């Protein structure tokens, strides 16, 4: 009785102490391994209008993810996340067909982001674009 209650006390206090120490060590470790803010999470992106010809697409990084801006008709610009809504591959622009193709499972999207065919469940995520002088302001 005497021995077993001492043992219980010892085990309990040692495991509490151990858990505390583990917690104190785990927090810095978790922070050290956590992804760090890359800075550009909020920012807008400036793209010279000349880089995006009529019927052409231009790919760029937007808040840490690939994105695409498209001049679908002269003077009409649209921007999308370039991440396929199916399983996350990066879409390609096929100028000859005037549509986006996802190379992974042949998902197809129109120039306005709508799904034309294949497995993607949702249209491409649109990003606002505005013209300011000779630049396109995305975001």
């Amino acid at each position: 009785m005497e021995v077993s209650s001492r043992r219980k006390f010892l085990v309990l206090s040692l495991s509490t102490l151990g858990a505390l120490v583990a917690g104190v060590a785990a927090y810095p470790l978790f922070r050290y391994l956590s992804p760090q803010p890359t800075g550009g999470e909020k920012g807008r992106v400036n793209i010279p209008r000349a880089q995006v010809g009529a019927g052409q697409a231009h790919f760029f990084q937007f808040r840490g993810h690939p994105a695409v801006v498209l001049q679908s008709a002269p003077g009409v610009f649209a921007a999308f996340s370039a991440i396929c809504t199916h399983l996350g591959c990066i879409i390609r622009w096929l100028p000859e067909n005037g549509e986006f193709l996802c190379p992974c499972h042949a998902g197809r999207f129109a120039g306005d982001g709508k799904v034309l065919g294949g497995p993607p469940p949702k249209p491409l995520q649109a990003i606002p674009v505005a013209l300011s002088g000779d630049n396109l302001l995305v975001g």
Partner: protein
Amino acid sequence: MGLGKKMADFIDARLGIRDILEQNLTKYLLPRNINAWYTLGAVLLTLFTVQIATGILLLIYYNPNTDEAFRSVQRIMNEVPFGWLIRTIHAVGSNIIVLALLLHMLSVLFMGSYKRPRELTWVAGFLLLLLSLGMCLTGYLLPWSQLSFWATTVATNSSQELPMIGDAAVRFLRGGAMVGQPTLGRFFALHVMGFPLLFGMLVLFHLFCVRRVGISRPPFGHDWQAPPPSTTFRHEEHPGGIPFFPHYVAKDAAIIAFFLALLLGVVFFAPGLFFPPAAFEPADPFVTPPGIKPEWYFLWAYQTLKLLPSEFLGLAVQGVAVTLLLLLPFLDRSPERRPSRRPLFVSAYVLGVALFVALSVWGHYS
């Protein structure tokens, strides 16, 4: 019956784990007069575990490239959350490990535990010491600071004085005429893969020797006797001794806690202790900073080289000292282990330690 016990029964029925644990914990008996110095091996195991864990974490952000290395270390220190903690523990830890290694070696020396049948334990241990110093040396270059660059330049330069092959040896160590990207590449590979792999194998061998031969009985007390000479293998038993678990494990834990407290004490209250100003400037191959010194555990060698009339003589003296220590169990073969009965050895021991300390202090202030 709890789930834990069920799982333990499952494993035990297949692998006989309880038996192994019992043989190595509660039924593993140590000499009754065992002392605290025997905990240093466990302390070293713990410190090396910390070193490996922090080393792997540093690898996530470190970049072994002369253009990037210094900046990547700066980033770890200033930007990555708790990067300063990981890096300082790793850097200070290396110093605490050398301290623990020296104490382990000195205690084993004083108690004569290197003697037959523990010669191989000693040789493996001494090689571990040399490997650890090798890891310290190669790791020192990685931050690519002025300190790293010039300490490595000087250290590699000392092999210049080797007869005949001196120049070739320096070029080979550096991978070029001067310390540069090739040096960083090979030091990095050695520091993170080459040495640790060798080190791990040697530690296993060292522990195997310790366990197989049995822990030595400390050579103190009236009833101590040298074990009878034997040409066949004999495991040293300690009938009536104290169990390893829980008795000695508690002592191990206490001394381990002491060393961890020492490590964290330096990390939190004197983080600059082992970082002279040259550690905070990026390497510049065209500017040697004034007063560059090696780390404290290499100061004895540094001072020897300065004192002796020729560098070759200095290297030769160091080589002889290291070889003598490595082969000590084969040179000092009497079975007597009691310090009180070994006046010659104890005098040489005290003189040797005094010489090491004196040379180091002199080197530090010269």
